[in-house]
């Protein structure tokens, strides 16, 4: 019996490796061209929009789509820089506005020739560079559970209320893009000096600064924190997938920051036209719908969201310009932020 089990196990694991080897090799030797899309895990992963987009795209393109995952946009850019051509990335998905100046500094990108896109007004400012095009956007705010707070904060200053002491889950701006957005929000709505002064006071209110959005949000859903910095669309996830209606996004007197996610085609691309086609698919109504439903973000193009649960959420006041900060500036702000943290007592 031992011999038998061993024998069958050996055959199967041999085949397993052979197949692994073959599927990757086959992709190259097969005459079909492969489009390599570089993205972060929650985009390309099974629950993200990636697989559906791939399915859609492969129906018409006579090619194969392959996703390459990285943990986040910072790491993706590093890989692109280090591996360069050998990486063979045709499309890069998931940069936000704070990554762009770094991306432009480190790499050369193909100009995207997009005709007049029928986008929402709040998206328009994000279109003014010719290398990256936004494919979705989200408005960031605090999310909380209904009835858990005695008082709902209406402005940033309300957050300093003792009721929320140690109950706010934030992200570390050094490692997470929503964290950076938060920092930016404060500085934009209060001005730099006052903003940092405010942050100093806020430190006492914060439960923790997590390295990633998912950790901060996990702390919140696990009821460690009463509110977390997230997207206005977050409650929709709970409503649609978990059938829980008690999550709400807070609205603030201050205009809320907008995060755009961009897609771009690096100059090193191998199947550049396919890449452009893929970008077009992402901006097409089908593509936008998939991205909206799977990523829980707003589509950039008009005509997809109307009539869905997403549409009403869009009506919040947002910062109406999109600033693409040079990376030196980002560095400087982060350094000041770190200074403040260093002053903390515990």
């Amino acid at each position, binding site marked *: 019996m031992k011999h038998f089990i061993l024998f069958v196990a050996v055959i199967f694991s041999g085949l397993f490796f052979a197949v692994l080897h073959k599927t990757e090799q086959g992709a190259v030797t097969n005459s079909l061209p492969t489009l390599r899309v570089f993205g972060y895990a929650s985009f390309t992963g099974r629950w993200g929009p990636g697989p559906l987009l791939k399915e859609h795209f492969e129906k018409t393109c006579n090619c194969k789509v392959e*996703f390459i995952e990285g943990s986040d946009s910072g790491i993706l850019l590093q890989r692109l820089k*280090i591996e360069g051509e050998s990486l063979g990335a045709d499309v890069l998905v998931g940069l936000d506005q704070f990554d762009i100046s770094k991306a432009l500094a480190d790499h050369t990108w193909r100009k995207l020739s997009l005709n007049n896109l029928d986008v929402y007004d709040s998206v328009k400012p994000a279109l003014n560079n010719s290398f990256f095009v936004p494919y979705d956007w989200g408005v960031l705010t605090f999310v909380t559970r209904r009835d858990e707070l005695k008082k709902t904060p209406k402005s940033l200053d309300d957050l300093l209320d003792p009721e929320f002491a140690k109950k706010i889950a934030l992200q570390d701006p050094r490692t997470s893009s929503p964290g950076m957005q938060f920092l930016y929000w404060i500085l934009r709505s209060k001005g730099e000096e006052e903003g940092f002064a405010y942050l100093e006071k806020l430190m006492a209110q914060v439960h923790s600064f997590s390295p990633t959005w998912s950790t901060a949000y996990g702390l919140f859903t696990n009821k460690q924190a009463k509110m977390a910095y997230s997207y206005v669309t977050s409650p929709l996830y709970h409503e649609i*997938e978990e059938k829980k209606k008690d999550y709400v996004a807070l609205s603030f007197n201050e205009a809320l920051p907008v995060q755009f996610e961009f897609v771009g085609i690096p100059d090193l691309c191998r199947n550049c036209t396919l890449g452009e086609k893929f970008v077009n698919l992402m901006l097409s109504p089908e593509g936008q719908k998939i991205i909206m439903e799977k990523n*829980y973000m707003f589509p950039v193009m008009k005509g997809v969201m109307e009539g869905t649960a997403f549409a009403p959420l869009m009506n919040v006041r947002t910062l109406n310009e999109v600033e693409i900060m040079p*990376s030196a500036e980002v560095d400087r702000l982060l350094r000041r932020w770190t200074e403040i*943290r260093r002053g903390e007592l515990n």
Partner: protein
Amino acid sequence: MSLRNGLRLALVLFLLFPFLFLVTQFGVSEVPDAGELLWAFKNSLWQASFSAVFSLMFGFWAALGLLSFQNSGRVKWRSILDILCLLPNFLPPLFILLSVLSVIEPFPMGIAGIVIVHTVMNFGLVAVLLAGIIENKLGGMIELAYVEGATRWQFLSKGLFPALQKDLLLLGLFIFVICFGSFAVPLIVGGGKGTTIEVLIYEKIRLSSNWGGAVLLALLQSVFIFTLSFVVSQGRTASRAKRTQMNLLKSPSGVFVVAAISFVYLYGYFEGVISGLAMTSTFYELQSTLIWNFVGSVVLGLTVGLLCYISLLWIAYCWPKQWFEKFLSGYVAPSTSLACFSLLILGPNEGFYPFIKIPFALVLLNLNALVRMGWSGELQALQSQMTVAYAMGASPAQIFKTILFPQLSERAGILAGIAAIWACGDFAVSRILAHHDLSIAMMTETLMSGYRLNQAMVLSTLIIVAGILCFVLCVGGSRVLRRKFTA
């Protein structure tokens, strides 16, 4: 150059590879801001020292509990406790963290918080290792003291602690090194003291793409630990004795410690699993992916186990050589992201290359932990036998085959099994090196990054299954090998 010297050199080069590679690739450009560095260093140092001390304390106590289950009839209980102790080591740290946070209310952020979480994560490992050391090395002494009527306290203070001083120090150093390089935990619960050197390295890479600076930081970190372990590792560990009566050391309160700490990390975890179970239907469409990723986890775990087993025996073959010993006891792996990136640059990343590179990286990162966890002690205990055999004129191959291998194979199997468990739970390394989800741990992480925390918790139970499977296979395999080659 003799074969053995060649092998020694090869191993040293393998372990130093990320440093050498990155230094040649990027050079060490700028000197980092001293104030920032000092601050991060201080944070790392404090949290790691306290974590080590507390892990040792609770680990020792728990080890006494483990020793209560020594008689043959209660072996089953012992292994359950062992598993409970080792569990926090291979669940994703976030789950432990969430669990700890939901039990301890209000949770003290800052150094205290980091120390609590680290203690919960590491006490069990200390307990299992210490129980092993006490059983293997001090049996006779305990019996003697028992017969002579020493009280427990007398025995502990006069006999056990002095005898184990060295082992305790080494274990402490081991935990210290683990905590010193920890990333996510300090960042989340560290409050203002959350910036450790590891965070600084990550920041240098991610934000300012300052590779030279990152390499320099990693080098500084390594040099510090290297000198530290030089200071600690003077002298010898306790020597071997036969297995005996442990009455004097049994302590049911230790079992209570295990139970209590296990409760701390399991409570929230089970809560999460249960609420996640309601949503398992999401997995229905994923059965085949699940199976593939499970196979992937097991394959990964076993490859790492096998490689670690080989490396450990490799070390044993090369053993008695002073500079080599010193190097191994002082060496500390470079930060995860640095090691991974250096592998990433090297050679292609498609096809089955991730299946080669990931185990390679994991061995690189974990080998020094395994050496600290008792391998060097084990080898030192056998040193006198090696000397005798050498004086008798036996060749290195002979010494290895008839003396070292039969006595070490099983122990190497256990250590390799632990490495396999770590490999099953890893997602940091594989996330960088793999192009898509290869293992359950990676899938868990993907789930977490898209709102689905509770499902991720459910899925992580499979990590435990895969980890235990790998562990059992490694230990069993090492036994079979020993029998095969010594018969």
